């Protein structure tokens, strides 16, 4: 739970945001704790939106090497 929000994947950030909303709904926190969870939730929502707005699809081409493992290949030309 200690990962900085900026390093979270979309799925991790969404899961944490959903968890915070559920926890706030359960209402087991002190007022001060609720506020800090709320602030964390706001930051998580912002992180999710940022990732959703992120640039173009990254396509990595993987090619088989003689020993059967995968290596990075040349960029795929979609044209």
């Amino acid at each position: 739970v200690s990962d900085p929000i900026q390093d979270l994947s979309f799925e991790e950030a969404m899961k944490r945001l959903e968890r915070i909303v559920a926890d706030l709904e359960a209402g087991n926190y002190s007022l001060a704790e609720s506020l800090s969870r709320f602030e964390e939730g706001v930051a998580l929502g912002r992180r999710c939106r940022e990732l959703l707005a992120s640039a173009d699809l990254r396509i990595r081409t993987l090619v088989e090497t003689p020993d059967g493992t995968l290596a990075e290949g040349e960029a795929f030309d979609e044209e």
Partner: protein
Amino acid sequence: VGLFDEARKRPLPRYPAAVAVVTSPTGAAVRDIFATLRRRFPCVEVLFLAVPVQGAQAAPAIARALDALSARGGADVAIVGRGGGSIEDLWAFNEETVARAIHRCAIPVISAVGHEKDVTIADLVADRRAATPTMAAEIAVPDRSDVRHRIDALERGMGARMRTRLERGGARVGELLRSYALGRVRGRIEHSMQALDYAALRLHQGLRARARDRSAGLDALTARLGALDPRGIMRRGFAVCVDPRTGRVLRGAGEAVAARDVYLSFHDGAVAAVVGRRIAEETR
């Protein structure tokens, strides 16, 4: 044995970080898949493994690609398939080699072979069957406008809960302050109460404004919420008196005298205290 068992079909990840695509580099299928992923969820990473999808080399190449992908890791779901063609063209996807490779793949596999009417062995073994390559991409990732709505709903839920919580919390702080025999500083209490009411009012206005105009940032709201933290009031010179045996807040001089050993909780920590005699009304 067990290749077609419905019970072993794995659920797909809701928000995959990386999608593997195993198909031919030529033809419409790969372009349809990439275009659909880009339109719906462009923050996903694509791992593309180019394979022949017809001819004698196809089945072993597809199987090797899936095995290599399992060994490498890094993808959350795989799409395997090709566009439409004759029964002979699709034959690789009826081969046992491919069926077994799908079955032992480390991540869930979505098959997309040909058109709606074409059903291959690969389709039956895969965790999900898509009628077309485009539909495979639609199954693999969520649509980002749906996801944005979900985030909106979560933020609204959070805001509503926080408001309720603040109303409750705010009332309790007011009660506490009122219950103390602090006649000499009544003016200061009232000042604090007004500040609290004012902050609560601004919070409500903030929430209403946000409901009307969703583009208003949550940052401002968060800052207003901070103003309601009871620690802010305590920082101005108030302490809460607690009976350490029960954890209960003491609400009057009589209770404090009866408890004798108490904790005084300040904004930055608590101290143990021993209560002396009750003092006369006029010297309070």
